[in-house]
């Protein structure tokens, strides 16, 4: 359904331009830039505490940046509120679960679907959108269960379905595969690939599962100590000495 022109357009769908975030004396993100092309899956990797989640928070508006700009769909959204960005088509999941715990899975997804405009829903009814989202993540027969009583991995899928139900242009997934087994991770990977292929959604994902990232992403950004230290294809990143140093440490650093 994606229009072919958009895939070839020169402007990236999401551009993070030299964003910095300062918490008191700590520079959590330092002049980080990245771009997500429409209709692709982009990965954001880096060691723990590199600032990946903070950067996600900046893109979705939960964390105002100290410096820098966020461009989405050809316009600056840096000053836009969280819900306005969501309505423009930015959807996300959370590393630390933020499902609506006291609601059922279906109600979780319905809240999101009800906020989507008719155009975003592509003319379908709210109920149809919600059901489809639940089916896509494989939760159709658990729709009536209260999310707060679900195992963490299942609740993660509810968050994914909730994000899908907003009819997003870009999906930001913060460790979507954590807590899932290999089979489920594979299913998520297939689902994402299919979404990108069929509905032209773009994906930006933070991941620790390297196999998952390498197989899925066309572009990778590596964040370390708040800075983008490298970017390129997965194969390039595997060979990059900077990346290896960030993950494994170097001989020069005695602490590592």
């Amino acid at each position, binding site marked *: 359904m994606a229009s072919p022109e958009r895939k070839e357009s020169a402007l990236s769908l999401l551009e993070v331009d030299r964003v910095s975030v300062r918490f008191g*004396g700590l520079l959590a993100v330092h002049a980080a830039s990245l771009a997500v092309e429409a209709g692709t899956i982009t990965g954001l990797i880096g060691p723990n505490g590199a600032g990946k989640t903070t950067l996600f928070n900046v893109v979705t508006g939960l964390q105002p940046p100290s410096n820098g700009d966020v461009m989405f769909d050809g316009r600056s959204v840096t000053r836009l509120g969280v*819900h306005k960005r969501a309505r423009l088509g930015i959807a996300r999941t959370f590393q630390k679960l933020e499902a*609506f715990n006291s*609601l059922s899975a279906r109600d979780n997804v319905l809240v999101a679907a009800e906020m989507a405009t008719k155009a975003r829903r592509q003319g379908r009814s709210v109920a149809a959108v919600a059901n489809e989202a639940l089916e896509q993540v494989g939760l159709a027969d658990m729709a009536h269960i209260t999310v707060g*009583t679900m195992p963490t991995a299942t609740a993660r899928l509810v968050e994914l379905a909730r994000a899908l139900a907003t009819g997003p242009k870009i999906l930001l997934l913060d460790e979507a595969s954590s*807590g899932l087994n290999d089979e489920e991770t594979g299913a998520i990977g297939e689902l994402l690939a299919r979404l990108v292929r069929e509905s032209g959604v773009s994906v930006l994902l933070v991941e620790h599962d390297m196999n998952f990232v390498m197989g899925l992403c066309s572009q990778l950004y590596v964040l370390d100590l708040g800075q983008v230290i490298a970017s390129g294809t997965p194969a390039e990143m595997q060979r990059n000495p900077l990346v290896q140093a960030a993950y494994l440490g170097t001989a020069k650093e005695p602490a590592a």
Partner: protein
Amino acid sequence: MKLVQRLRSTLGLSIGLFVVLAAYVVYNGRQAPKLPGFTIENIATALFTGLAIGALYALYATGIVVVYTTTGIFNFSQAAVAAFCAYLYWQLRVDWHWAAPPALALVILVVAPLIGLVLDRLIMRKLEDAPVVIQLLVTVGVMYFILIATGQIWESDTSRKLPAFYGTKSIDLGPINLTYHRAIVLIVAIIVAVALRLLFRSRLGVAMRAVVDNRSLAALTGAKPNIVSSAAWAIGSVLAAIAGIMIAPELELDPSNLNAVLVFAFAAAVFGQLRSLPMALVGALLLGVGRQFQISFLKFGGDWTFARDGLAPIVLLLAVLALPQSRLQVGRVARNLKPIERTSKVWETALGGVVLIVLFLALSGGWLNFGIWDPASWNQIALNRANPALATAFIGMSLVPLTGWAGQLNFAPMAFAGWGAYLHLRFALAGDGPTVSIWWLVLVGVLSAPLGALVALVAGRLRGLYLALASIAFTELMAKLFFPHPAAGFRDINKFKPFDVFGVDLTTRRQFLMLLVVLLAIFMVLLTMLRQSRYGRRWMALNNSEAASATVGVSVASTKVVVYAVSAAMAGIGGALFGTASGTVAATSTFILDKSIPIVLLMAIGGMAYPIAALFTMFQLMFLALGERLEQAGAPGWLLGILTFLRLFGPGLGAIGMVANQRGAAFETGRQNARYLPWRKDAKEDYAAARAKRREPEIGELGLSQAFSVADVVAIERRLGVADDLAAHGVARAQGVGVVVAGG
């Protein structure tokens, strides 16, 4: 760097407060007929008196801050403990003629710490991980319980006066006269401030500060969280006792009067950002001096003679708004969930409504005769009691969407109700004719909504404790500045007319009772529909996680405006009905914080998220009518005793009981009894499953002192509900034990 920032923010806050205060004073001063002269003597006297009163506020605020910084619990019962101690001191000193030193020693050094320890051990320690809403409601329950108990022990039929230390003797300091009592207050406040300063630098003090940051981490480094928590509550109570004994001679000895200091204490504590003792002290002194200068140099003229009471709530509101607020943050964990949360079907509520209507028809008609019940129908007095209780149910119900679903803690339902009553009085009753059309209620609802929206716009970004404090300030503002004003129309004899419905005049009390019951049933059905609508869902979602709501496109701010407006409309209609039920209302003793709090407590005990909690609230309030009827009918004394006890102590004890049951009586009753309804097969299954689960051993019983067997580990995982997660990770059980031992 950090210090500079902090200084800057406090300075900004102080300047802001003073600008607003000055504007407030100047505005009110315009009408002042005559200002006393600004002589050195007048100013110095006012200054010292103000400082002494401020020092008393400081004692209260300090107690609150000490407990809050150490345990994370904001103690609403501070002033109630103070009132109790003041009465106890009166008992020893005045009634039993003890000398001052032993009486002081017993109250301050023995009884007060004991109260603190008991509160800590029995109640507060169990609240560590509870949601803020529950923490607040439980301490409010403690406050309510202590106040009622104090009022019962020392009944108000005799007048009591606690003498000032050294009577009226005073020190002559040149231009001013300072009584010994006030001089002592100042000295005590300084000693307390210095002592606390030293304490917080001591080993215990460091441990206290560490514990609040991270209890278990502090425990690992050798601090003893339990001792620290006990110490904080004991110190808090001692400060309360000192404050109560010192302030009682300045005020009348009356529980609710002594409790009213709370708003000043809150304002001072919030001025110190709830953390800083020196800033709380500064805030308290500023409040004391500000108040005294108002009294000395401002004669509020004309319609504003009452206006000086507005100082404390204004300062509280501004200070809360000026506090640094947390950004959208992670949602709290919802507890005690059922795998399948079933919401009532609309037809079920409608059926319940019909049952309610029939029941009341039978009761009020005297057709139901419960043995001792007087069959000669409800008389006027009983109906006079029943009708306001029913009307209050509407006011309580306004909390269901706002607090129960959207999680916005609100102590202001009576303020909204008062606004509704005002509107009704202003517009609906202005016309001639003996009755007023029921449709005016719709207008009252519509016009009440904007006040709710306004509150949401001002306080919308506040959460948890701060929101609760803002709603308290709002209630006090309405009660102190709006309702007493002649323009509100409550000051003159106000007369609420009966309603007419479709041309039928409902002039008798029983007709009005039935109107209330029918409206109540309609409201409950409407709420049930609302809960299942997109709005109900969205409000629940907002309660679970504001951050996640925003990221799916929900505007947090406008959603709050809507839910506040809906709640205010319901409470407003409730207020109009309440006025009609009472015939005439004394607004300044009705639409106030003291009357709001029991409603909030009763709704919470009933189960804030369920409309049926409003019926629970109503029945509790009807105990009064019930008791009188039973007494007339010659019921046995013990039964009347139980009813009186329930009526007086029910709200407080019930709220304290929320330590154990956080979702309220409606939830538990439903969970236990839904299986008896013929169409609820699911509830029967749930009940059977819950019984089966109860037989599983608790983790404690599995024995931490001996080695785990694989079976133990499996049982623990099942009990913790992580078995599925582990299976998902492919953790095989036999190796799983190895992983645990290896320190994974």
